[in-house]
Structures are given as structure tokens and as C-alpha cells.
């Protein structure tokens, strides 16, 4: 090994392989492309799949944003960001969604609509939605090939029978381009519609499971549903039926996290997307749906 650390930690051959797999994933929307996931200086399950994609795609002119559950300041996000800064000298980092050219994220897609010139990389624990109904990967591959998703739909049926509602809260199986069904990583239902005809390229990296897949820009992404049971996102209504607002910025149109106030014991709500909340709190002109409650 040369004494000079290569840009982006991975060697050029490794990065080339990841890029080639990513290109294949874009070419076959929703298809899980196997790749040779490298050992990273962190445990598998801490975002190694997303990290390898980011390190392979990033160039020194890039501006990077790393978020974890919407937050730029959580341990996972901070450590990943500083690792990438350390191994990719010259890149810029930001917490502002609008300024980033590359976004690595865990469990959220930012509230602010992404643009064509942005790429979002999502960290994936379980890439295959069929794992719920079929333990054998061989059989799952065949099921994907034959578009045999009836058993996933049966799961939805059983939910409807038992609870009158589909109870999947995150990792909602989504059909891409009318063909493959993918696991959109543990994003909440709230974020699923954002994948449909997204302006930005969405890449998924599963390091432990060694898979890369993609939702290319302007591609159909439809959550699996019955024709007479429409897909619903979280509604955040309170007891009186009104929409809860963020306690910091007052936004009534974002995905909210629920906290318990440690002093008063009260249940409080605030934007899960930290940058969105920050931007709204600072701007004087508030967009529609925001009140100063």
C-alpha cells in the first residue's frame, strides 16, 4: 500500500466497481445489483453501503450533506461526515439541503424537494422486501424475475383483515417503473411519495447485504396497495382532528418527531428534518401551511 491515502478511502478499482454497479442499478430501476461490498473501518450496519456509494461518487468539487433521521448533528451523521471529510480532502460540507450536491441519508428524504443536479444516497439495512415472506434468496430472485409479489400483497390483505388498515410504518414496499418492488430503506411512509418522479437520482446502498439499487429521476414509484384502499401517509392530527405543528418553527406540513419534554413530561412535536426546521425558523416569509402557533 502506498503511503498516500487514496482520495475517498477506497482504491480506484473498488470505486470503479461500485460506480459500475450503480450505473447498472440506474439502468434497471429497482433491481438489486449485487456488488462486492468492501470492509470499511466501521461495523456493517452503520451505513457502510451508503458510505461506499458516497465515497465512490464524490469528487473534490462536491458539496456533501450527511443526515441521520433528518438530523445533521446525530452521532452517526457527524462521524460519517467527518470520516468523509478526512478521506476526501477538498470537498465542502453543508447542512443546507439546497446547497448540497450529494446527500447521504439514513431513514429520511429531506422535506425540501430535491433538484436534478442532486443525488441522494440512502443507507439500507434490508434491501429485499420479499424477505418478509420468503427466506430463500434463490427463490426471492426468481420471484422478482417473475414479478411475483402476490405474497407481499397477501400481507397487506391480512393487515386489512385484522386492523382495517395497512400497518407498515416504514420500509413500505414500492414498485418502481411498473416492475421491481424494492425496500425503500426505513424511510417513513411520509417520504415514499417523494420517490415518485423525483428530480434527483436516489441511490440505495446495502453494505452488509451487498446490494445497490436505484430509483432514477422521473421514474414511477408506486407503493403497493389495493385499488380500493388508497395509500396513506402519516397524518399527525391531534385529538380534535387538527394538524399538529412543529413546536420550533410552527410548520404544519412536515414529518414530525414525537418527544417527551424531560422537564414538563409533556408530549411535544417537532420537525424531523433539522435543516427544514432551521430554514423556516429563520426566514421571515413563511411558506403556506406554516403558522406561528
Amino acid at each position, binding site marked *: 500500500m502506498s503511503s498516500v491515502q487514496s482520495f475517498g478511502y477506497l482504491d480506484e478499482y473498488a470505486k470503479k466497481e461500485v460506480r459500475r454497479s450503480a450505473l447498472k442499478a440506474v439502468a434497471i430501476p429497482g433491481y438489486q445489483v449485487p456488488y462486492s461490498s468492501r470492509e470499511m473501518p466501521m461495523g456493517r450496519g452503520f451505513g457502510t453501503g451508503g458510505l461506499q456509494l458516497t465515497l465512490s461518487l464524490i469528487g473534490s468539487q462536491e458539496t456533501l450533506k450527511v443526515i441521520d433521521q433528518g438530523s445533521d448533528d446525530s452521532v452517526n451523521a457527524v462521524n460519517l461526515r467527518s470520516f468523509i471529510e478526512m478521506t476526501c480532502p477538498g470537498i465542502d460540507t453543508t447542512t443546507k439541503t439546497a446547497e448540497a450536491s450529494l446527500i447521504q441519508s439514513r431513514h429520511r428524504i429531506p422535506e425540501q424537494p430535491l433538484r436534478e443536479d442532486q443525488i441522494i444516497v440512502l443507507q439500507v439495512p434490508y434491501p429485499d422486501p420479499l424477505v418478509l415472506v420468503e427466506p430463500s434468496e434463490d427463490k426471492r430472485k426468481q420471484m422478482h*424475475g417473475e414479478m411475483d409479489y402476490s405474497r407481499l400483497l397477501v400481507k397487506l*390483505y391480512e393487515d386489512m383483515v385484522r386492523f382495517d388498515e395497512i400497518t407498515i410504518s416504514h420500509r413500505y414496499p414500492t414498485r418502481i417503473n411498473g416492475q421491481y418492488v424494492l425496500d425503500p430503506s426505513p424511510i417513513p411512509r411520509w417520504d415514499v411519495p417523494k420517490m415518485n418522479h423525483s428530480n434527483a437520482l436516489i441511490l440505495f446502498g446495502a453494505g452488509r447485504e451487498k446490494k445497490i439499487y436505484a430509483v432514477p429521476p422521473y421514474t414511477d414509484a408506486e407503493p403497493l396497495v389495493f385499488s380500493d384502499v388508497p395509500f396513506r401517509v402519516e397524518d399527525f392530527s391531534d385529538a380534535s382532528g387538527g394538524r399538529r405543528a412543529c413546536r420550533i418553527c410552527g410548520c404544519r406540513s412536515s414529518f414530525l418527531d414525537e418527544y417527551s419534554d424531560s422537564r414538563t413530561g409533556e408530549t411535544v412535536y417537532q420537525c424531523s428534518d433539522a435543516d427544514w426546521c432551521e430554514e423556516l425558523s429563520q426566514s421571515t416569509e413563511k411558506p403556506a401551511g406554516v403558522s406561528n402557533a
Partner: protein
Amino acid sequence: MHKVLNVSSLSKVYGPGCSDCFTLTGPQHDTNICPRCKSVVAAHNVSFDLYQGEILGIMGESGSGKSTAVKCLYFDEPPSSGRAMFFDATGKQHDLFSMNAARQRWLANHHFGMVYQNPHLGLNFGITAGGNIAERLLMSEVDSYTEIRSRAKELLTRTEVLTERMDELPKNFSGGMQQRVQIAKALATQPNLLFLDEVTTGLDLSVQAAILDLILEIQQEMTTAMIVVTHDLGVIRLLAGRTLVMKYGRVIESGLTDQILEDPQHAYTQRLVASAL
């Protein structure tokens, strides 16, 4: 009468197979294991036609290849050689063994139904009875929840399963009930062709009679063509109009059921009929 299925020279060999497999096995050699390469000739040269509304019986002892033939036709196993033509309700031909796996699955989902001896093979015990029927409907692209519910209810009523138990797991059901759910599932897509593999074996006599009645009613009502695999002569006598008798993977006798049971020609069939009486 409209032809539903034409099977010609269907063969299935388990093992490497050699050029002598077919000449050194069969009833005349008293074995279906090739002495040269040790392959098992499960079925060889099985040919028959099946017409709409007809029930064809396939009879024989265990290991005679009767289930293997049906499994090949239902795509559970690929055949070693042979051809099978399926004609759907519009008269369109489908060459079963030349299409790819996805087309085969599509065809089986839309036009075939299968009822196994063991409900564990035909039903998913982890989901409700209604869910099992829903799976079948979802496979054939019915995507409305209300429609699935009402179709499942209809089918369970038809097969005399209490609809109040629709949302229960099949493991809570008796053997006869499980078999009824399995039949309801197989009928969900109104198949043109129904395979019944030892459906009454292991059930007590009164339940057997009720299931056989149900099968006959379905045949009368829906004019579904059926292939009934069994070793039970009573079932053959009651259901099948025509019968194939198999031994060591070969069809040794075929013809009208009455004829075969009253005037068996082959020594094995004679022994079989005599021992049953």
C-alpha cells in the same frame, strides 16, 4: 366437446439417465430404476387427451408415477421430455413445456388449479383461510380489496366452509375443512383445468363422501376438466369417466372406467381390482 389438454410422450427421469433407461425399466422388468445408471424413471411415454367437463382418473400404487405426471403438468417439476398442449376457453393453444417460467406461472395462476393430498402443500398455514384465497386472486391480478373479500366469501360458501371462520388460521380447522379451503383456493380463479392429487386420502369416510360430492357438483356446475390422481378404486369409480392405470412409470392400461374396473385386461389391473373387492 372442446379439448382442454393433449399430453404426448411425457417422461420424467430422476438421475443422470442413459440410453438404456427406458428399455431396461417398466412393468416387464419389474422396476423403475435403471440397472445401468441407477436413474429413476418416474414416468415414461404418458399420453392422453382431456376434454372440457371430463374427469380423468390416474390410478396406480405408490411410486407408479401418477403424481409425477401431474406435478409436471402443474409445473411443480420440469419433465425430461414430452409435449403438452393446453387449450384455453377461447381455444388458444399453449405449449406448456416450451414457455418460460414466468409464462408458466402466469398460465398456472390463471387457468389451472391444484389440490394436494396434504393441505400443508396447498395452503399457507401462517395466513388466514381468506388470505389463502386472496393470494390466489392476487396472483391473477385481482387488486380490489372488497372484490377479494366478496369472492373469498363466495368460494368458501360454495365449498361449505362457514364464512364466519374466514379470518381464522387453517391450522384451527379439521382435516376435511382444510381440504375444502384448499378446494376453494384452487377454484378461486375459475380454472379450466383442476388437478386433484389424492384429495380424499387420509380423511374419514363421511368427510370423503362430502368432498367427492363437492367435486362432482363443481364438475357439473362449472364443467371444469379434472385430473384425479388416486390409489382408491372407489374414488375412481365415483368420479372418473376415463382412467389410466400406471405401474413403474408406464401407462399399462387405459380406457373407460367401467370397462377397466369390470373387465381389466392387464394382469396388474386384474390383481388391483380383485384385491379391492
